[in-house]
């Protein structure tokens, strides 16, 4: 059955498998920072999936926005929480670099996939024939879907206001 799949489909399913394995590791890890390593790999794997489906723009956004910006925010937030006792008591101690092995292995797998797809002329031709460019995405977003973009901005506003309210310091007497 695997033999019948085209090379692109094979790579796609492999990347999907990496995403699933990495996501499972995210929720089973005990240490938050270690879990985040797997989360990065999971997001990168999804980006590879996007790329193999002919959406390099979405893949780029996934890497820049999720794996880049949001993950860094996440790491900073977790480092600044100051879990103190909880962290030292419940999380396993750092055992050298062995914790790096799993995420690295999965990430290398993704790198190999990308290299294979870049190296193979057949795959490149198939990918470039059905590509969705950033221009097309932009025209759609600011054409027929303009109102959706506006509503999404209200959605973010709602999240911001709710988040601000929950994070507000408790005692504000006299400060309105």
């Amino acid at each position, binding site marked *: 059955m695997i033999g019948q799949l085209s090379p692109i489909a094979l790579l796609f399913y492999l990347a999907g498998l990496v995403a699933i394995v990495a996501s499972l590791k995210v929720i089973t890890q005990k240490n938050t920072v270690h879990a985040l390593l797997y989360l990065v790999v999971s997001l990168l794997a999804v980006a590879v999936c996007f790329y193999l489906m002919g959406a390099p723009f979405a893949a780029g956004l996934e890497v820049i926005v999720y794996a880049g910006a949001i993950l860094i925010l996440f790491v900073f937030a977790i480092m600044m929480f100051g879990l103190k006792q909880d962290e030292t008591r419940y999380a396993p101690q750092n055992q050298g670099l062995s914790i790096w092995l799993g995420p690295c292995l999965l990430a290398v797998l993704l790198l190999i996939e990308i290299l294979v797809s870049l190296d193979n002329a057949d795959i490149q031709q198939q990918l470039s024939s059905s590509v969705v460019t950033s221009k097309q995405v932009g025209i759609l977003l600011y054409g*027929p*879907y*303009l*109102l*959706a973009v*506006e*509503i*999404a901005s*209200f*959605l973010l*506003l*709602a*999240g911001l*206001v*709710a988040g*601000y*309210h*929950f994070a507000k310091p*408790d005692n*504000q*007497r*006299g400060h*309105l």
Partner: protein
Amino acid sequence: MDSQTIIAFLPQLILAAGTVGALLLVAWRRSQRMIAYFTLVTLLLTLVSTFNGIGQLTTAVTQLFYVDDYGRFALLLILLVSICSLFLSMQRLSTDVEVHDEYYLLMLLTVLGGSILVISDHFASLFLGFELLSISLVGLVGYFRQQQYSVESSFKYLILSASASSFMLLGIAFIYAQTGTLSFSPSADITGVSSLSLANNYLLPLGFILFFSGMAFKLSLVPFHYWTPDVYQGASTPVTLLVATVSKCAIFVVLLKCCFAYYQHYMGLHEQVFNVIAAVAILSMILGNSLALKQQSIKRILAYSSIAHMGYLLIIVLLNQVHAIEMAWQSTLFYLTTYLIACVSIFTVICLSEGEQHQDVNLADWQGLFWHRPLLASLVIVAVLSFAGIPLTAGFIGKFYLINLAANQAMWPLLAALIIGSGVALAYYLPMVFTLFTEQGQSDKKYDHLLSFGHRSMVSLFIVLGLLLGIFPDVLGHWLLEF
């Protein structure tokens, strides 16, 4: 956009502009009174523009929205309820030193989300409206952080509504994979859609069931109902009113729109899908009512009864005959109107009989209410009888519409469940009424703050409305027929 489109879309535009205006107002000057009245004016303007729109042409606003009279009427209901909720919140918020700007902002955003849902004609706008509604409700449910269950209930709501939306997204993805379009009413020129047959196609029904389960979470139908009592109890009463009415009304209307479009384009409902939805409906009717039996907290009783009511309404979703659509819409809107009136009535009373600490109101707190405060008690009686579907109240006519539809389509199991459910429901609705008349109500319990004129007139208005729709249902029925 031409002028007709803009007029059709005006309610949403006013709400959006009002939200931005409220933000600017906060930046300019923070005052409890000003922000509250600004919100009220925004909602009233939206109400006027929606009311004006009823009876006008149906208009497609880009491919995302389709404004018709059903949507407009549902928006009218949402706005009326949120004005009532605002009125109830104002009393509570004004006693605080802190200026609650976020509360009003989140409320406007909730209404905006609901208004987007009721006119959406596309899965993208549906999802955005759905999320806007949930996120702002999460903020509102946990708004009063010092209250006992507030953070817990908002957390429950957040996590469960996020998982519901992910199920829904997966369902939408499956539907998209099969039909190639995200629009509810795909135009015929998209190849492959018209030739799509239901036979041997399992992804489309599977996607539909996943989509339905996301919606069912918000409607708190039975396998997805666990959050309902906790959230109802944990949120402050005006917010519970919003969760019980605005969210359910908007979600149900959009679910119905989506289902009817689906039936029209894909030649009815898959048998398995029909069975799944019917099972959910029957379970909701019976379990919802049975779980309410032993409850003491009034909000919990209402939560379980809302599960049953949404189960009754699901009968309409199962009508997959295209010719019955007008009748189905009429029944839905009538039932929703009566349900919302009863909800507003009973939550108003809960709000007015809460103590200073806003603790949960139990059945015992209402003992002998009729002798202390006859006006409030009469409102409770009308509302509870309307929930139960006793003749001469609005709820009876609503239920009559449903029974009529179910009997016409020969859906006997559903009809049986509806009748059994209503019978079980009497076992907790009637004790609620009896409690009001018990003489041995704790005499030391004094309701010292008297009702203001505004509250008195609101209470009287809802007593009249509940009875009027029960005695002269044609007032609303004829109007709905013209849509």
